[in-house]
């Protein structure tokens, strides 16, 4: 029985541009003299650097350790010397610098000893811990730490979906990977299934990749697995997590939720491949396949080590041709402009496109929204982008949120079809980050309020306690005074005696005190010291015990 994929609302059919880069096999990048490994390559907390400048590292040695729950490690892509741990250009839409470990390769490419895992016998929890150490994160683009996604808690997972749709134009890295390394992917999927303990495994691939589908089906049959490979109609964005879930199972992800809420987990084929390598070879995630395409001499796919500067990667593809007008990291719809060619390939970088003005003309002047509704028809999430745009543009983010802004997957289908060329997704991203900022501020304010209220309460309490203590003391003095008057207070007498004794003791102790560092000296030096002391005493320089003693009680 083969499932027939369903149909999600909206979607677009942009020009594929897959043929440019999917004709040649995956090439391996040569070893480079220098790698730059960012510590924040995944969603969540950045890894903490665990190497120092000047330290020698081996391939696969951790250079950053996972910090907190939503985090994962980073590893050295080759052997060499750490020359810097500093802020460097990273592939990020902001163009801001971020902390990176810079490694000068020694050319030997020696590796640490990898520990293959017998995953079939391994407890899923131990497997997840290992995956966390090996730095695995989703390679489809969201780079969410994989070990969290491999955890079937709190919701049990009944279906695993492996996403090989690769719906965005130009990108072909998953296509090539599926064609060439299908058996490894299938084994990786088996590992995922072992960790998740799910019954059904569905592999979705768009039908514009017939070779990949054939290769996967053959690999599944060879492995004797019951995974189902399903051809999806080619329509962007069928590779979106919620879209592929609906296409394959007919289950809609609830608004504001994840597919795990309905017992379905989605992984990218690239992640399955990386997991297979991590588990069967014990090798951390130090390389991935990256598509280099567009206006370059030899477009293709490259097995690239994480940390490879993008300009070296472009050089491997024959370099940008004359007339290039910039680079995009990721696909043309969801990617962003690269600000600095020195930025390295990270776990998130699946594609680098070199633009030229004919294929990527500059964005036309945006015209007013005419409320034609084309965006709503194209929206795969069933939203009304023109309403969200109306309020995002007026900075009325609350109302934009009321139109389910956070169900927007930023696929760019709306902006693609907009006849007024309005950069809709830019407005939505702006609105989202403003709302997040506001929520952060709100939680900070709540915390500050709580702390301030507690401080006020504490001061009040201290004041009250002090007042009570004073009142008590005053009462006691009064009682003592009364006792003196009556001439009999054994308690006060006893206290006085104790105080006197303590003072006497202190006096005595001070008289006999001597410098401690003279204890273990040879007798000759001891004698010398005694002599000097005597001289000083004679000259009246040193404090005599009689003078230091505190005579006034």
């Amino acid at each position, binding site marked *: 029985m083969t499932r027939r994929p369903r149909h999600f609302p909206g979607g677009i059919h942009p020009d594929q541009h897959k043929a440019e880069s999917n004709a040649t096999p995956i090439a391996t990048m040569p070893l480079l003299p220098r790698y730059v490994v960012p510590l924040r390559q995944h969603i969540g907390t950045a890894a903490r650097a665990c190497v120092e400048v000047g330290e020698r590292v081996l391939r696969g040695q951790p250079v950053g350790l996972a910090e907190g729950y939503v985090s994962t490690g980073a590893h050295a892509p080759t052997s060499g010397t750490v020359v810097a741990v500093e802020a460097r250009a990273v592939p990020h839409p902001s163009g801001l610098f971020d902390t990176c470990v810079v490694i000068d390769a020694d050319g030997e490419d020696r590796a640490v000893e990898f520990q293959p895992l017998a995953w079939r016998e391994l407890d899923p929890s131990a497997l997840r811990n290992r995956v966390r150490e090996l730095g695995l994160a989703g390679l489809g683009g969201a780079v969410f730490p994989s070990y969290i996604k491999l955890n079937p808690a709190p919701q049990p997972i009944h279906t695993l979906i492996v996403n090989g749709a690769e719906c965005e134009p130009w990108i072909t890295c998953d296509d090539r990977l599926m064609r060439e390394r299908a058996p490894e992917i299938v084994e990786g999927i088996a590992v995922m299934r072992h960790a998740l303990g799910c019954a059904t495994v569905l592999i979705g691939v768009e039908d514009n990749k017939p070779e990949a589908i054939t290769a996967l089906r053959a690999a599944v049959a060879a492995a004797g697995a019951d995974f189902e490979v399903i051809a999806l109609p080619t329509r962007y964005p069928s590779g979106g997590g919620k879209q592929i879930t609906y296409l394959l199972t007919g289950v809609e992800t609830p608004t504001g939720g994840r597919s795990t809420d309905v017992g379905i987990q989605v992984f990218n084929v690239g992640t399955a491949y990386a997991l297979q390598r991590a588990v069967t070879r014990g090798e951390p995630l130090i390389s991935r396949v990256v598509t280099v395409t567009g206006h370059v001499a030899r477009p293709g796919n490259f097995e690239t080590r994480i940390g490879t500067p993008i300009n070296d990667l472009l050089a491997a593809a024959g370099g940008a041709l004359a007339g290039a007008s910039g680079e995009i990291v990721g696909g043309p719809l969801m990617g962003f402009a690269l600000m600095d060619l020195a930025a390295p390939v990270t776990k998130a970088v699946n594609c680098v496109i070199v633009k030229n003005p004919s294929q990527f003309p500059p964005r036309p002047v945006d015209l*007013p929204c005419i409320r034609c509704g084309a965006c709503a028809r194209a929206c795969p999430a069933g939203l009304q982008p023109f309403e969200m745009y*109306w*309020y995002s*543009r*007026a900075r*009325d983010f609350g*109302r934009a949120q009321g139109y389910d802004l956070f169900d927007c997957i930023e696929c760019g289908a709306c902006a693609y079809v907009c006849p007024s060329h309005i950069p809709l997704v830019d407005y939505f991203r702006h609105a989202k980050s403003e709302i997040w900022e506001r929520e952060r501020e709100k939680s900070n304010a709540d915390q500050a309020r709580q702390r301030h209220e507690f401080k006020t309460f504490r001061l009040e309490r201290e004041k009250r306690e002090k007042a009570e203590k004073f009142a008590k003391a005053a009462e006691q003095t009064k009682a003592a005074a009364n006792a003196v008057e009556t001439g009999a207070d054994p308690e006060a007498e006893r206290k006085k005696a104790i105080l006197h004794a303590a003072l006497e003791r202190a006096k005595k102790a001070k008289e006999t005190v001597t410098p401690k560092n003279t204890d273990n000296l040879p007798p000759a030096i001891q004698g010398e010291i005694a002599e000097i002391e005597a001289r000083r005493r004679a000259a009246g320089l040193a404090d005599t015990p009689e003078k230091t003693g505190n005579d006034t009680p």
Partner: protein
Amino acid sequence: METYFFILIGTVFVNNIVMSKILGLCPFMGVSRKLETSIAMGAATTFVLTLASGISYLIDTYLLGEALAYLRTLSFIVVIAGIVGFTEMFIKKNSPVLFRVLGIYLPLITTNCAVLGIPLLNVAERHDFVESLFFGLGGALGFTLVLVLFAAMRERLEAADVPAPFRGASIAMITAGLMSLAFMGFAGLIK
């Protein structure tokens, strides 16, 4: 029964108190900046108006009669003021934010000409008690309808690219004018 239905339809759409009688413009312009507020204002006005038309009918018929007809306006104003005072306390207790938001407009229901106009029209058109109640309810519902519609439009206008000279009150006035034109389309709905 039919009469009451016609009274309702007539007051809500055809002879809308704001759009065709041009009464109650002060809260119409003042409290239409936010949708939630306008709904609340509409509800408060509906409550006051229905009650006011009933009570003023009773006062006019049984207390004043023909002999003391000259006290009509005066006593109606006093009654309305009393009801508004009551409503004010009620809202202050149950929704302080609404109280704050309605602000000056809540006590101003007292001087809302629609609230005085409807009881007076009741007398002029010789409605009986139930007719008066329906006339008051219908007038208030009509007021609420246009107020809410207008507030919804103004909320969208807030986010719109209005040319600078037309921003604020001017575009609101233009919108109100267009709305009034639209409501003229209801004329002749009931034969």
